Every structure is written in C-alpha cells, then in structure tokens.
C-alpha cells in the first residue's frame, strides 16, 4: 500500500486521509477489469429482447463463423451449472436460477447466450449476430402493486393496532411508493476467470470474496480450496455486488471451456437488467395519535416487487418497530412477482424506503396535529426497544434531533406552506429521523511484524472504496506506534484468513476486534522473543515489563529511545517475522451484547429552494447528525455521509428505472437517461457525528456508517418540498410534473 504520514498518537478517531488514495488518484489501483492475463480472451453475453416467454430458436452459426470467435455458449450446449444450496448464508447467490439453465425467459435482458472471442470487439460483433426467436408473452412489469390478493406475513406486532387507530383523535392513512432504483457504482461489474488445471482464480468486483469463493465452488462443482477470489479494489457496489450474479459463473464456465482466461465486463446498460436493483415498494401507513401528539397506533403494510425466480423481501419494516414509542403496532409485508431481474439490497435496504414512508407519514401527522415535526419525534422517542422489550445499547436519537435542530436553525421555521423566502425564492424546511441496525460478525486476521521493519495485516475482506484499508492501518499504528509508511494492509484475497462481507455497515465493527487481537498477539510474541534471545539487549527481562512504542521494544520504566527497534530484535533472534492470528466472533454470540437492541440513529434536516414561476426546485442545504458509535476515521466517515446525502437527493428527486410496459425493457438504462444527482445538484452538507462509543458492539465502541447517512434524507426533502410548495408527494421521485400542481402564492 502507498502511505501517508500520520502521527501514531491518538490515531483512532483521527481524520486521516485514506492510505489507498494515492493509488487511486494515480490510476495504479487495479480493479477487476484492469487485470489482463496472458492469453486472455473476452466474453460478451447475448440478452433476451423479451421479458417473458421461451426461446423458440437460437441461431449461432453466423456468430460462430465470425473472426476470432472461439465459442458460443447457450442452453443447448453449456455444461451443468449447479444451483447454490438454498439459504446457505456462506454461499449465497443473487439469482437462484443458473444462467442458460433452460429456454425460459423471465425478464428482459436475461442472458441467452455467451460469445467468447479473441478480442472484445470481435465478441461484441458476434454477440450482435446471434439470432434468437422467442415465443413471447406479455410481461408483467406494472409499477402498481395494488390490488394485491396474496398472503401477507406479520413482521412485528404488539397491542391492538386497528382498534387503537380507529379510536385515535388524529389520523394519517396514506400509501407511499418508492421506485425501482438501479445500483450505479462507477465501476461496472466485472469478472476475470482463469483456470489452471482444476483450480480457478477470479479477479472480481465483489463485496464478499469469501462468499464469492464458496458460491462459485458450489456452482462449478469444485472444492472450495480450488477457488481463489481476488478483489483488491472496488469502485463501490452499494449492495449490488454482495453476491455473485450469473455473469460470474458464465465467465468461469467459458474459461473452463476454452482453456484460456476470460474477461467479462457487464455493460452499463446490462447493469439495469442483470445485476439487481432496489425493488419497487408500495407501503400503506396508518398512524394514529392523541390530540396532544402521543402515538397510539402505527401500522405499516408494505409490498415490494420481486422477480419470477427469487423471493426478495426488501424488509420495509426494518426501522418501524423500534424507532418510536407506540403501544399498538403491526408491520406486515408481502411480495409481488414481476418480470424483472432479481432485486438486491441497495444501501440501507428496507430502512431507506421504509423510513421514506414512515417519516413522510409522521410529517403529515405533525401537519394534522399542527405540531412541530421535531417536537412530535421528541415526544414519541422510545426509551427501550418496544418490539422486544430490550434496552438499547446506545441510543441518542433525541440528541441527534436537538443538535440538528440547533445547527440547522430550525427554531426560525414558520410552519405555513410557502411562508419562508430568501432572495426571491420560496424556502422549504423539512426533517426526518433515521436509523439503521448495528452488527458485528466473525472475522479472522493475521498480523505480522517483519524483520524488514514493517507490520502487515492480512484479511480476506475487501475495501469497497470507503476506507477499510485505512481502518486496519489505524489499528496497526495504534498498536505498534509505527507510521503508515511502515504499515502494509493486504485485503481482498481468499488465500488470507476469512473476513466479513462488506454489507450492512458492519465491516468496521467486525474487523476491529480481530485486527487488534492479532496485533496484540504478534506484539506479545515479539516481547517474549526480545526477553529470551541470547545476547540481545533485553535478554532476561520479564516480557510483561516490556513495551512496543514507536516501533521500539523497551522496558516500561524507560523511554522508547532507550529501547531497540523491533526489527533488530527479530534479526538478533534470526527470525524473518513474528505473527499471530486472531478470530473474533459475532455480536450474536457475545455475552456483552446479549439482550441489547443495537442500532445507529440520525436526524436529517433539509432545505429546498423553490421557484414556482419556473417550477424549479433544488435542494440547497442538508444538516445531518449521526449517532453511530465511536467514529474511527471522521474524515472517511464524513465522506461517506456526504455521499449518502447526495444519493438521497437523487432518491428524492431523480432516480427511477423505467420499464417499457410493452416488452419489459428498462428503457432508460444509461447514465444520460437514468438521472442521478450531479455535483451541481449537491447541496451544502453539514455532517456531525455524536461520537458516543457503543462498547456492547466491540471494544472500540464503533458501529457502522455506510447506510445510516441515506436513511431519512428522502423524507426530509419530501417534507421540505411540502413546506415550500404545498404538494405532498408520496411516490418518489418528486418530479416537475408533481410540483406543477403547486398553487402560486404571493410573497
């Protein structure tokens, strides 16, 4: 790793630049598609142009005869691709149906063939020459999920919600919708697969090298030890790269067939059909309160669409049962099948669309009560997790709301619609509360101190681009006193000890105990060696009285300068290195975490500027306050939250994957037509971390920050839009056509 100088003192909690930054800004970081292996060839999939039906005929003769073409795989000639074991948490795939399994078509863009050729251009041209004919049926891609006649299942329930709602003094009963959103990390999905005998190596764009290895071994029918997965850098994934998609297996099968390394890069357009999306949701919320604003009933009935081949539950009720104090609550959910590719978790799955609905309903309730929306949240703050009676490990939602309120200047808000102005524009102010679960899973790490004077950590996890390399380096710097120049962090390789999947905002909380434990172990061995090496300066000392400070071994009673550089200790002992492994368990098995409800919390405050004369609305300012435990690297942390806020602007105002109702094609599948927020759309963003350590989760008190920043942004903006325009948009994104419904108001 490249390095950046940072003082080792107080390195935990210091806003250090990411150690991988220079590699990225100089273009030397190697992403999956950057790997060019000797003899490598290229694979390009052929996609179905219908969304439902069967392949009637597939003519590959022209493609097969084209220059450079090595192979055309399809359902008639592909070898067996095995299915993954259902619900195996260690070998999960995104789409249950293996690619090319049969002649049936379930969604537009499904792979029906794969061309392998010497060059990308040859493979692309030959893929276009494959002639497929289909028996097509009319696909079901409707964006309306009601009326729904299927089975609902109960997610959470307490009290008697319907009676309480009926009897409530003030009620809101509305349905909210969020659209299909496509994960658009700037790095495309890509697989380079290379067989050597009966072993295969994947250079992958994955958020989970270990799961990827396990799943690929299962699918390809080879032992796990024959599969290696390497992901040195990831141009992010937002959940879309958690588990393997069909193209990964296709690349491997093609490589095995042609006995050459194969590269398969999913195009941006394929990203919209073949590698997941946040599913469409439709959520009815019934909220009842007493006349003074105490919640008495909360009911959420949430539908989300799924594909024909997988049951993907978005989990819109993630935050509902515990965010507020309410005696009567029911959350139910159900799935509606559509002819679309399988959905996949996108940043803050469940909570993000769920909170859009719930916090919009809370804002509507505040309007109905003529109560300040912040006050309404404060009044209904929960002191325990009422869904299970557990204490919260650390909950500071109240302080998030109060701090955000003060930083935003909320007390200056006048509640009447269109009542606030600045520079000739109408201002709208809105807010929302936010939450996201806090998790820690198992992790193994090796730390070694080398005779070359460097300390190294190894772990088969991956940095999705948010700073995990630097988190490892910070712990090593803390433990050894070495500067970053002498620290190497090696991640993203399944030959290393198993680390976590990058999901659920749990990476930091998960790796910290393992890397700290391994570092402690390696240092203990080092000190023992220092005390027992014949003829060495510290020979005969009690190892317990020795310390490693600033990279030097010394007596606790003396300064580091009076000690010996650790590499000298190793050299004297004729050792190349000393290392230790450490494995930390999941929070579910940890007695410290037992019986505690662990979540992060936040508050989002948004300002919009509205020019009714030209129907122009822009988000001008967001204040976000996050309670996510102790923040290990506030610089990388704030960067994540700011990115999430910008993503929230896109969710509120812009993003929507549109399916042509006639053939099921995602018709805006490119970055010009699928709108995401640009720099020009980014508001001024003020991020505050409360920084209360949560020691129930780990010894550092760190939770996660990957997802919480997006939670609550869209409803805060939607509420600000209502405040500015008087238009309550319950179905995202908020569009100009919605805003044109606003009445013009005099200043």
């Amino acid at each position, binding site marked *: 790793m490249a390095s950046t100088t940072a003082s080792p003192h107080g390195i935990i909690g210091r806003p250090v630049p990411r150690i991988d930054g220079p590699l990225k800004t100089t273009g030397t970081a190697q992403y999956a598609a950057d790997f060019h292996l000797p003899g490598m060839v290229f694979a390009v999939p052929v996609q179905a*142009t219908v969304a439902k039906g069967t392949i009637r005929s597939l003519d590959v003769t022209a493609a097969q005869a084209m220059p450079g073409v090595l192979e055309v795989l399809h359902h008639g000639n592909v070898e067996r691709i095995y299915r993954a074991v259902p619900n195996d948490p260690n070998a999960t795939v995104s789409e249950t149906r293996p690619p090319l399994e049969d002649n049936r078509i379930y969604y537009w863009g499904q792979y029906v063939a794969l061309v392998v050729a010497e060059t990308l*251009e040859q493979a*692309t*041209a030959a893929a*276009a020459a494959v002639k497929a004919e289909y028996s097509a049926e009319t696909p079901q891609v409707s964006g309306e999920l009601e009326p729904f006649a299927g089975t609902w299942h109960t997610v959470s329930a307490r009290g008697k919600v319907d009676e309480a709602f009926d009897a409530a003094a003030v009620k809101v009963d509305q349905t909210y919708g969020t659209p299909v959103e496509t994960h658009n990390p700037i790095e495309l999905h890509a697989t380079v697969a290379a067989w050597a005998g009966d072993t295969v190596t994947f250079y992958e764009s994955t958020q989970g090298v270990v799961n990827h290895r396990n799943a690929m071994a299962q699918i390809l029918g080879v032992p796990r030890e024959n599969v290696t997965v390497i992901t040195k850098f990831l141009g992010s994934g937002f959940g879309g790269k958690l588990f393997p998609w069909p193209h990964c297996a296709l690349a491997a099968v093609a490589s095995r067939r042609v006995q050459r390394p194969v590269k398969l890069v999913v195009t941006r357009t394929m990203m919209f059909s073949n590698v997941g999306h946040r599913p469409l949701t439709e959520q009815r919320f019934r909220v009842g309160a007493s006349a003074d604003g105490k919640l008495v009933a909360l009911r959420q009935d949430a539908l989300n669409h799924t594909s024909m081949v997988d049951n993907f539950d978005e989990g819109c009720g993630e935050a509902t049962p515990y965010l507020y104090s309410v005696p009567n609550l029911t959350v139910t959910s159900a799935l509606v099948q559509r002819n679309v590719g399988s959905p996949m978790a996108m940043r803050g799955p469940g909570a993000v669309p769920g909170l859009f609905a719930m916090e919009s309903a809370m804002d509507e309730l505040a309007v109905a009560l003529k109560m300040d929306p912040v006050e309404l949240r404060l009044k209904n703050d929960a002191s325990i997790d009422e869904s299970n009676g557990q204490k919260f490990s650390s909950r500071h939602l109240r302080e998030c709301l109060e701090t955000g309120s003060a930083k935003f200047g909320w007390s200056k808000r006048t509640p009447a619609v269109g009542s606030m102005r600045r520079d000739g524009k109408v201002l709208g102010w809105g807010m929302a509360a936010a939450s996201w679960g806090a998790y820690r899973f198992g992790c193994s790490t090796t730390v070694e101190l080398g005779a070359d004077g460097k300390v190294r950590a190894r772990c088969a996890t991956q940095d999705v681009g948010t700073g995990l390399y630097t988190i490892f380096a910070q712990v090593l710097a803390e433990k050894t006193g070495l500067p970053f120049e002498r620290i190497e962090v090696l991640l993203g390789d399944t030959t290393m000890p198993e680390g976590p999947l990058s999901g659920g905002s749990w990476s930091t909380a998960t790796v910290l105990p393992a890397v700290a434990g391994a570092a402690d172990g390696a240092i203990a061995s080092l000190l023992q060696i220092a005390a027992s090496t014949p003829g060495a300066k510290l020979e005969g000392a009690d190892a317990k009285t020795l310390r490693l400070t600033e990279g030097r071994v010394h007596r606790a009673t003396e300064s580091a300068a009076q000690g010996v550089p650790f590499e000298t200790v190793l050299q004297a002992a004729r050792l190349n290195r000393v290392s230790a492994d450490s494995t930390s368990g999941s929070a579910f098995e940890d007695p410290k975490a037992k019986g505690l409800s662990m979540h992060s919390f936040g508050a989002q405050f948004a300002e919009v500027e509205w020019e009714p*004369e*030209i*129907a*122009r609305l*822009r988000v001008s300012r967001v204040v976000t306050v996050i309670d996510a435990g102790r923040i290990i690297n506030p610089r990388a942390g704030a960067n994540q939250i700011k990115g999430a806020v910008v993503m929230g602007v896109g969710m509120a*105002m*812009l993003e929507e994957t*549109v399916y*042509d109702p*006639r053939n099921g*094609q995602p*018709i*805006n599948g490119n970055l*010009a*037509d699928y*709108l995401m*927020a*640009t*720099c*020009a*759309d980014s508001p001024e963003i003020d991020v505050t971390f409360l920084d209360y350590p949560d020691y129930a989760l780990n010894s550092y008190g760190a939770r996660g920050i990957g997802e919480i920043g997006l939670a609550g942004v869209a409803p805060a903006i939607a509420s600000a839009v209502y405040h500015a325009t008087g238009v309550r948009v319950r179905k995202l994104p908020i*569009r*100009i*056509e919605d805003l*044109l419904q606003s009445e013009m108001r005099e200043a």
Partner: protein
Amino acid sequence: MQSFSYSKAQTVDQAAGMDGRFIGGGTTLVDLMKQGVETPKTLVDITGLPLSSVETLPDGGLKIGAMVRNSDLAHHETVKAQYAVLSEALLSGASPQLRNMATTGGNLLQRTRCPYFRDTSYTNCSKRNPGSGCAAIGGHNRMMAILGTSEDCIATHPSDMCVALTALEATIHVQGPKGDRAIAIADFYKLPGTTPNVENALEPGELITHVTLPAPRKASKQVYLKLRDRASYEFALASAAVVAETSGGHIRFVRVALGGVGTRPWRSHEAEAALMGKPATATHFRAAAEAALKEAKPQSENGFKVELAKRCIVRALTTATA
C-alpha cells in the same frame, strides 16, 4: 460495430463531395455507431480543416467556423458580449468534456436522444426504418416532443445551441459537389412528417463550413433559459431563447425559439406575433406563451411540458425585457 474506412480531409474542397460521413468531435456519431444506429462505410475526419475561427464580418455580423468547439464558442469574447443567448445555451448543454469536443457544425446535426431511436432492437422507428412507425408513441415518452410531431416520429431535437441560433436567425453555409449555398436556419430543419429520417436540408456530400449571425441589435437583450430535472448534464424538458428589444415599455422586436419541446429547434412566430408592439407585461407574456403552445400535442407522459414550456417562455421574456 461495423468496420469502416477512415480518411482525413486536408482541404475543404477535398472534403466537400467526399462519399462518407464527416466526423468532427464525434460526440453524437461515435455514440450512435457503437449502438449500431449509424453504420457509415466511410468516415471523413474534418478536424484538420481550417474552419476553427470566429470572425466579425464587415456588416457587423459574426462568422463561426464549423470546427469551432462549443466551449471555445461559448467563451469567445464577442459571443459573450453580443450574442449572450448563444453563450448561455452552449454552456447549459452537455458537460465540459463534451463541449470541449463538440463542434458548431456537428451540433447543428446532433441527433435525438429518443431511446427507441438509439436501440436497434426496435424495428418500428421511422427515423431509422422509414415507414415503420414510432415505438415511442405508447412507450416511455416523458422526454418526447409536443410540437411538430407526427404519427411517424415524436423525437425531440436535443440541441441547446440550435435553439439560440434559431432565435438569432443564423444562416448555415455549406459547400458541396454543386457548389456553395447558404441556408437560413428556419429552412434548415425539416419537420418529421412521414420522413423523419430526413432531418435537414443538406444534400449528399454537402459540408457545413460555417455559420453566420446577423449584426447584433444593439438595444436588444438576450436570454436562454433551460428547465430540466437536475441542475446539470441533462437535456431540456423545456427551454427558451429570447432576443427582445423594448422602448417605452413596449416590445419593438422579439424572437422566441423553444427547445426540448419540438421535433426541431422551435421558432415561435405565434409568440412573436402576440408580443409585437404590445406592452412588456406579464399578461402579454402569458398570452404569447399560450399562443406558442396552442398546437401542442402531448403524449401519455409529457402533458406537463405544455405548462412548463409556457412558464419558461414567460420567465425568459420577463428577464429579457426587464
């Protein structure tokens, strides 16, 4: 992508009449070649031709070479000072990277973003396959045109620059096998009718060499206003280019052109007629906007463009006459 031959033209005389597609910045053509929508057998690279200057003409007008890059034109001192509507329109389009590549001649020939035109799996596109109909009708048509459409095509003309040039009454100069000619921009773009594949008045082999603008009207004010979902890097939902002159509170001269709503850069004579000689007031601006959109034919998803375009016109007129 089909194979093609490539040659680089050394002189304008050599280029004019060459059998092939001219390529300047390539910001439309290369894109469409990758999609298989454009399949030229021969590309003639004209980036080496001496057509990159901007010169003031003896009559006070401006001559803009066909190879002048969008970013250079937008930041040209004369353009900024005397043809502000053109500078504003250029800067509202695309991204800095694209503007650095895109040329004046190329932008005049920019093709539509209609997703059905850009995807050859749709055989029903009269712009690609004359007489085959229009896949966008009944499809995802939020971005489509509401003025000048036909049963064969509802694709929106995408350019911002051309809207400003329309309001400025530019003239397009071409050189071809039969010699030179000058075409008023009003005559340059064709309505789709039953032949949306024919987008402009160029004859085979004709090369756009430059564009001329009439001398600026000293007392006029110019405005380009673009309305869209996001703040940058998006085609217009509605835009308006206005050149207006008032005296004594009355409108003495006005040109109104619209973007994002028409199948070609949309000159609104109706709006101009409703404004000429009238007091520069909100009432008359709204009346002009109503006149401009009177013939609008919205599709299933873009009815909102009618009101949006009206508000765009009113605001542009308000600013231009303030």
